[in-house]
């Protein structure tokens, strides 16, 4: 039964992808890409990847759609020029070669879901066995993300940070950009109902974000998802009440600070463990016992991740919105 559902979702996925690429209207493409993300999140959930599904839903369907729409507000939404024929033929050729390579690799792969596949033999069982011993938290994904591969996650935070300062550097400071233009309408002021409902809901969304943040060790969730959710709540506020109001609550300087301090908190935990006699990001030394130290470490770095992600996503949103005037 679940297989059938899986096949259905997969077919929808392919149909959506085809529609996305063939549609000439960019607005349609972007809305479909949100739908695509939601579908693929559902598939991830069926494949037991709850954390990934939550992230994809928050980031892919939520934030990325908002970004695309914000950018589309600044440009023509119609795709006018069709590529020349030789380009299409060349692309088909390149894609065909790649696909042939992938088809060639398909056989001799372990079967889908085979518990004896090499991937399930070597490192993974060790993690599943040792997470309860080393850090005693139920969510194994959080354990690996925060501790065993904490260095990857540090890198990831800095990727996000790079994107934040990159967008700022390319598009310019939102506050200055806004000042240069005449602000016509701020937000959806004349829509009473959305405003009212939005205002009621925003605290709950933030609350949910905080739950996802601090419950990440016990259930799917963690800093990235929480950051995306909290950022989404504030973006909703900005859409309803206007950019300026949102910037009054958290000004640009605050966002800079949020971005930087989140990244620094994460790296700072690493430096602290170094100074306390451990290796970089060896949380065990933070407290008396290994387990307590690991839990503290993961809690702290997840907080850092959440701060940076929130700060960066809001910064990017403001940077786009200031250009488009919403």
């Amino acid at each position, binding site marked *: 039964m679940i297989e059938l559902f899986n096949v259905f979702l*997969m077919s929808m*996925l*392919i149909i959506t992808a085809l529609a996305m*690429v063939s549609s000439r209207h*960019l607005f349609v*493409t*972007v809305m479909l*890409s949100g739908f*695509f*993300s939601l579908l*693929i999140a559902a598939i991830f959930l069926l*494949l*037991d*990847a709850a*954390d*990934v599904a939550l*992230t*994809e839903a928050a*980031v892919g369907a939520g934030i*990325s759609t908002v*970004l*695309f729409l914000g950018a*589309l507000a*600044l*440009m*023509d939404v119609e*795709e*006018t*020029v*069709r*590529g020349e024929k030789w*380009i*299409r033929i060349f692309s088909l050729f390149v894609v065909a070669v*790649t*696909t042939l390579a*992938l*088809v060639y690799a398909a056989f001799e*792969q372990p079967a*889908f*879901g085979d*518990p004896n596949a090499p*991937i399930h033999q070597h*490192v*993974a069982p060790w993690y*599943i066995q040792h997470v309860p011993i080393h850090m005693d938290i139920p*969510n194994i*994904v959080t354990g*690996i*993300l925060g501790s065993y591969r904490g260095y*990857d996650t540090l890198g*990831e935070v800095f*990727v*996000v940070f790079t*994107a934040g300062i990159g*967008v700022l550097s*390319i*598009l310019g400071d939102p506050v200055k950009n806004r000042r240069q233009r005449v602000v016509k309408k701020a937000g959806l002021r004349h829509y009473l109902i959305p405003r009212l409902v939005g205002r009621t809901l925003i605290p709950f969304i933030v609350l949910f974000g905080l739950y996802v943040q601090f419950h990440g060790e016990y*259930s799917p969730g963690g800093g990235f998802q929480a950051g995306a959710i909290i950022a989404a709540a504030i973006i909703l506020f900005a859409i309803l009440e206007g950019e300026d109001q949102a910037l009054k609550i958290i000004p640009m300087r605050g966002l800079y600070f949020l971005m930087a301090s989140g990244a620094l908190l994460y790296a700072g935990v690493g430096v602290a463990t170094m100074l306390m006699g451990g290796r970089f990001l060896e949380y065990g030394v933070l407290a008396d016992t290994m387990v307590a130290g690991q839990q503290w470490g993961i809690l702290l770095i997840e907080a850092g991740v959440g701060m940076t992600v929130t700060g960066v996503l809001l910064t*990017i949103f403001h*940077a786009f919105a200031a250009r488009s005037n919403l």
Partner: protein
Amino acid sequence: MVWLDLYHYWVFAILLMIGYFSVIAKRNLVKKLIGLSLFQSAVFLLYITMGKVDGGTAPIIGMTDKTDIFSNPLPQVLILTAIVVGISTTALGLSIVVRIKEAYGSIEEDVIHQKDQVE
């Protein structure tokens, strides 16, 4: 049937093709970015698929007490990272597209190319 057992893999391959084609063949810059994110999503699917274990559950201890078989958590960790990398790339790409639109008045690669030639 070997073919049908691998259907997740085929979906991955088809999505990859669609995205890749869109990146190379489309002349519209936003379309290229959309294709790029499609291309990356396909790879996410590849990783998550290979982590699935038959009869397993999400790797959270004590979430359900029916089984103690867990799907492989490591690919999930990797893909969490990759998703965030993907959105970062998209955001950066979009901001460049916005600037290109402002500088050239178009987001079609051919038009931009023409304007560069004229100069």
